[in-house]
Each structure stands twice: as structure tokens, then as C-alpha cells.
């Protein structure tokens, strides 16, 4: 095991595993590599503001993490990216969310199509009460893909990508609810990537899992970043440090600081961020 080497300020590492960070390629983000950009986004629930004036961009094929205390709006922000907030009564959004060149909040946008391009994995594993196979094939069947051979191929590929294939290949027709929590969450990830999205949103994907399952999910996220733009909301700062390239710290509905994970954890620019990551925060 290598020791943390680069930083002279011992306080700044705050005990994080910097190995992981430094093993990653740290290519600078080009303007053209932006997957999604948020401009002057405000969100309120029944008149109560939850997000204020958010303005930032998410890089393509990187892992971006949102951290912050409970109720800071990080999940609300995530749910803006595939318009899951539409389901909440009294939720009003203003500002723009640009996916490529389209503002996804334009009334002409087909929400189903948007959600196929921006997949989402939730906090609690939510497999459908069907077979493992049908769970993965669900999104494809919705799109009218019913050819057995084609489905077989995609199901296998997706389960392999989600590192679940070897565990379930002999019982694809069993009910998905018979899987363990960690397996269920990986199944949900397989289900999400089966429809070939550009972006995968993960809303605290490991918070209801045991440490070993959490580790596997994190490894999986690391694997997936070569193909998908990933945005992850997490409570767990170590997790953010381990898996993400970029980290955004949010507090009270505002984006306080957004930087490369490396810099944010080692050299935060804002007092609030430093307080939060050092544990001094309320």
C-alpha cells in the first residue's frame, strides 16, 4: 500500500484514502465534454423553496457526487435531471436544465424519452415482482422490443455489466425478490443500463446495504464510468471521495462549492465546505 504522498498539509487530507483519487486519470474537463448543464435552476415545493439559483455543469463519462447534510436539496437536484420531480404535487421548477442542446423542461419534451436517456437508481432496491430476466427486459419491452434472441443478448450483457451475471445466470426465471439486497440493487442497475442511457443517476444507492454490498456497488460505479455519465447522491463522504471525479457540496438549497473531488476534499475554498467535511458542521 502506498502512503499518501503529494500533500504537505497533513490536516487537509482529513483521513481520506487519497490513493484511490490519485490512481485516476485526471484529464482536464473540456467545454465539449459537458453532458448536462444547469442554469439558474430554482425549485420549490408548494411555495417553499428547496433549490436556489443552481448553476453548474456535469462532465461526460465522469462520476459526479453530490454531498451535503440532510434536506440540503441534493436529491431534489438529482431528480430534476430526469424530471422525477414532476410526480410531486406542488413542485415548481424554473431555470434551464440542458441535456446536450435541449432544455429538458420545455413543454415539448417527451418525458418518457428523456428518462430512457437519463436512467435512475433509487435508495432502496426496487425490483419489480417478476423474474430476474423480466426485470432487466422491462425497459426494452416498454420500447416494444420483444424478440427473444435480442432480449436474451441484452439481458446477459446488462447483467454482466452490473457484475451480477455469474450469480444469477442459472436462475434467470426466479423471482427477483428472492435476491439479497445488494444483488437487488445491482439488478436495478442492470435494468437501468439495459435501455442504454447516456446518464445514470444514483440516489444514495448503497445507503440500505451492508458494507460488502456497498463495496461491490462502488466497484461497479467505477467500472461504469467508462461508458456512462454518472451522478451520485451520497451521505457518505468517504464514498464520494472513493468513487467520484467531481464533487458538489450543497447546503440549504444552494450549491456551495463544486470542484474536482481531489481539490474539494483536500483544499476546500469555502468555510462551510471545510466545516462539513471535517465534521464540524452542526
Amino acid at each position, binding site marked *: 500500500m502506498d502512503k499518501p504522498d503529494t500533500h504537505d498539509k497533513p490536516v487537509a487530507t482529513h483521513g481520506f484514502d487519497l490513493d484511490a483519487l490519485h490512481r485516476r486519470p485526471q484529464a482536464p474537463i473540456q467545454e465539449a465534454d459537458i453532458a448536462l448543464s444547469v442554469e439558474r435552476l430554482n425549485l420549490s415545493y408548494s411555495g417553499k423553496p428547496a433549490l436556489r439559483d443552481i448553476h453548474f455543469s456535469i462532465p461526460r463519462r465522469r462520476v459526479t457526487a453530490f454531498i451535503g447534510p440532510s434536506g440540503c436539496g441534493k436529491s431534489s437536484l438529482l431528480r430534476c435531471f*430526469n424530471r*422525477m420531480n414532476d*410526480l410531486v*404535487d406542488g413542485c415548481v421548477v424554473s431555470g434551464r436544465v440542458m441535456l446536450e442542446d435541449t432544455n429538458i423542461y420545455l413543454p415539448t419534451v417527451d418525458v*418518457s*424519452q428523456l*428518462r*430512457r436517456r437519463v*436512467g*435512475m437508481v*433509487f435508495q*432502496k*432496491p*426496487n*425490483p*419489480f*415482482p417478476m423474474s430476474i430476466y423480466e426485470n432487466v427486459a*422491462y*425497459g426494452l*419491452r*416498454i*420500447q416494444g422490443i420483444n424478440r427473444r434472441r435480442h432480449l436474451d443478448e441484452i439481458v446477459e450483457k446488462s447483467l454482466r455489466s452490473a457484475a451480477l451475471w455469474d450469480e444469477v445466470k442459472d436462475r434467470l426465471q426466479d*423471482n427477483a*425478490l428472492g435476491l439479497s*439486497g445488494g444483488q*437487488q440493487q445491482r439488478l*436495478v442497475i442492470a*435494468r*437501468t443500463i439495459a*435501455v442504454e442511457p447516456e446518464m445514470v443517476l444514483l440516489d444514495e444507492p448503497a445507503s*440500505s446495504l451492508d458494507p460488502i454490498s456497498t463495496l461491490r456497488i462502488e466497484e461497479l460505479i467505477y467500472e461504469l464510468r467508462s461508458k456512462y455519465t454518472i451522478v451520485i447522491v451520497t451521505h457518505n463522504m468517504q464514498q464520494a471521495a472513493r468513487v467520484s471525479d467531481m464533487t458538489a457540496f450543497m447546503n440549504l438549497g444552494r450549491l456551495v462549492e463544486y470542484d474536482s473531488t481531489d481539490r474539494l476534499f483536500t483544499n476546500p475554498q469555502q468555510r462551510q465546505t471545510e466545516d462539513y467535511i471535517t465534521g464540524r458542521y452542526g
Partner: protein
Amino acid sequence: MSVERKSLYLGRRGGIAHWFRSGEPMVWLNAGAVSFALLSVFGLLWLLAWHGLGHFWPRELLEFSVSREGELYTVLGEQVSRERVSTDQLRAVGVRTSASGKWELRRLVKRGNRDFLDTDFAWLLDSSIVEIRRPRAVMRVERLEWGNLYGRLLGIEDRGKPVATTAAADEAATWALFQALVAENEVMRAAIRDLEGEEVGRINFDMERLRLRERRLALAGEALPAELAERRRALEADYEVARQRLLTLYEQSERYSYRVALADGREVTLPLGQVVRAILPNDMGVLSKLNYYRVRLWEFLSDDPREANTEGGVYPAIFGTVLMVLLMSIMVTPFGVLAAVFLHEVAGQGRVTRVFRAAVNNLAGVPSIVYGIFGLGFFVYGVGGELDRLFFPEALPSPTYGTPGLMWASLTLALLTLPVVVVATEEGLARVPQSIREGSLALGATRAETLWRVVLPMASPAMMTGVILAVARAAGEVAPLMLVGVVKLAPTLPLDGNFPYLHLEQKFMHLGFHIYDVGFQSPNIEAARPLVYATALLLVVIIALLNLAAVALRNRLREHYAALDAPV
């Protein structure tokens, strides 16, 4: 030391207080309530079974010598019951009794022979009975008309000429011949029934259709094509052939007659064609009695009723009940599910929806007779009358759908049970977790696709629960049915071999109404009483079976969509 002992061993005084505090009385109370409920249910079933199923057992025949005002006469029959009656009550109704005590015993004897005696049941006071005998060679004859006959077989006649007599010391041979003729007769009766029911029924059906077609053409002002007249002639020829065959069969069945000595000494000659079956109950072993029991029980379940429903079977009523409940389920399920989906998934959860929901729930509390009146006024006269005017003008003035019938009865009961299905389905929808819906939406499914592919399958066990409750309620309902389609006696089943096979406009029989009719509208109450018990038991069993079928279906669905109960 003594203090410690007090706290450990409760004194007598603290005992009861402690016992109450411990919660034990509540446990006993709960257990008592459950036992009471169970005892009531099993007591009811036992009562129904005892009185209903006992009816089919061949009782022994007793011959009573009774003295009334010094005159001796004989009564032959089955003793049905024996009870205590006060002498004052007897005197008050004008019975002269010699007994001095306050109470007297009397027996109810079924003596049959309604065509020769004024009543087929008689009360005999124990004090007036001189002698009770148990003669071996007395027979019990079940007949198509006039109820049972009790007496001694004297002989058999072929068109008035004696062919066998018991007087010639050939008792066994005569009895055997009698049984053989009865069996032959049964075959003949079955042939008559088939001919009348199927052949003549079909001809009548076709004739009626032909008449309606002619009338339709006449109403439209068109000329009648020649082929119609030809078709009518062919049908009339068919009918003539069938009629001739029927006449021959009837003639054959009227060939034999039998002579019987009644208990009072009269000798009568009766047509053998009327005999359903005859036994010598006092000469039967247990095995033959059991066999006889089986035959009669099967007759009860599989045969048509006879004699104003006091004899024979209840098959048409079983058929009508089950068919009506099935149709009701088929009608109520889609309506109930659609309404629940609208209330829970589509409509916003505002004040209006709450009012609607409360209104639907309150429909469950409307008395069933109100539904019956609504069904009669709206479905039968309103919708049915309009249908007749639009689609069956040729049959008017006799109504086709504008009269109570199977469809309207099922529809009325579907309306009656709708709230149950709506409430159960809504509960099922509410139990489908939001996270599952979000999971589906996040994959690009629309709300409709999510509802159809995930939510409704997961709510299907709850829907089945609703249907189970609906079936339980509908199968036991009688009051509304009396207004919208049930009759005392339906000549044909609503499902038969004539196109379109299921006749929704026909009236039908129903076990619940059958119980009411036999029990309270029957001219011969004593004869009908056991059938009321048997029919009630049958209705309970059928409802239980329908429910079990629905429960089995629900459990299969539950296994399939086990998400709601599975640990995460």
C-alpha cells in the same frame, strides 16, 4: 421474611385484583367470543345437516291402531317427530282427550296417500294409540303426483288383466316384477323427457324464431319468401313425428297398473307409470338403505323439482345460482377495478374525490331491496324496454329483455357488490409502493404502462379479495332477485343447446329464493320442511365452494406477486 413471602405468594385478597390486572380475564373473554362464534357456526351447520340430510334416509313404516271415540282405525306411515303438548291446548282446539295429566305426548305421522285421505300428515295422541305394529310387507311408493303412497302390494294388471298377485303366495315374484316394471318405466320416462326437452324444445325454439322472422319482415313491409313457409312445413312435419313418438311412449307407460291395499282396508288400482320408485323399508338391510339414501340424495342434487317444489331435486336452482354468481363476477370485476383505478390513480386526491369515495363506500350500506327496485325500474323497464323497442320489435308486445331475467339479475347484483370490489382494489393499489412505480417511470414507462404492467398485477390479489367478498354477498342475496329475474319454477335452464346457448333474457331459479318459496309459499308445509333444511345446507356449501375457488385463485396470484409481503 414475611414481607418477601407476601410479595411472592399472592394472598387471597390480592388474588382477584391481581388476576384482573394480569390481563387474563381479557384472554378468557376473547377466547370465549371466538368459541361462541365457532359454536354458532357449527351449531347452525349441524342443525341444517341433521334435519336436511336425515330426510333422505328411509324410515321404517309403522302401523298404528288408534281408537277415537270408541272407534278403532288404522294409520300406516312414517313417524316424523314426537313432542309434548299441553292438554289445555288440545282441549282448546276441540280434541277430546282421556288423559288426566297436564301434558300429553303426540306423534306426527306421515301417512301419505293424499289422493285418498284429506291430509298426508296426522297427529296421533299417544293415549289414543292402542297398538303399534311393524309389518314387513308394506311399501312406500314415490309417485310423480300426489306424493307418497303407503300400502300393501296386491297385484299387477296389464291393461286391466291381472298378471301377478300376491294372493297366489307368490309375493317375492310379484315384487320383483313390480320393480322390473318400475325400472322399465324409468327408462321410458327418461326417453319422454329427452324427447320433450330436446327435440320438441328445439322445434318450439325454431318455430318461435321463424315466427319472429316473419313478423320482422311483415313489419318492414317486405314479402315473405317462399322458403319460410317451406321451413315452417318442415318443422310442423318434425313436430308431428315427435308427437307420434311421444304418444306411443305415453301409451306404453300407461299399459300397466298395480293394486294396493291401503291401511284402512280399501283396495285401489293405480297407474304404474306414475311410480318413481318403490321400497319395502321394513324389509331392507342397512346396505340397501344406504344405497337408497345415495340414490335419493343424488336425485335431490341432479333432478328437477316436482309437485310445487316439495319433491324431487333442486338442480335448476343450483345451476341458476352458480351461473348468476359467475356472470355477476364477470360484470363487477372490470367495473370495480376501473372505478378504483380512477379514484386512486387518475383523479387528484382533492375534496371531490373524497366525496366520490365516500359515496361509493356508502353504496354498500344501501338495503338490497332498494337495488332490486332500482334494477326493476332502470334495467328491466328502462334499458330492457328500450332494447326491445330497438332490437326486438317483432316480438312485442311480449317483452324479450324488458322483463326480469338472468342478465338484469346479474347486473343488479353487480351494482350491489360494486363498492366491495372498489374498496378492496383501492386498498390493493394503495399498498403498491411508490418506489416500484418510480422504478418503472424512471425506465421511460408512461403512467399508463406502469399501471398496466406493474401496478395492476401487484394489486390483483386485492382485486380477488374484493371478488371473494362480492361473491359471498351476491350468492346469499334473495330480496333484489325476486324483482329482477328469479322465479319459482323455470321450465328450461338458461344454458342449453339452442343458439346462442346462453339465454340472458330468461328467468332462472335460485337456491335462496327456493328456500323462501318451499319454506313459506308451499301448500304442503310438513312435506317441504326437510327440503328447506337440505336446500339451506346446499346453499351454504355452494357459497363456501365458490369462495374457496376464489381464494385458491387469489393465493396463486399472491405467490406470483409476493412483493408486498417480502422482506427487503
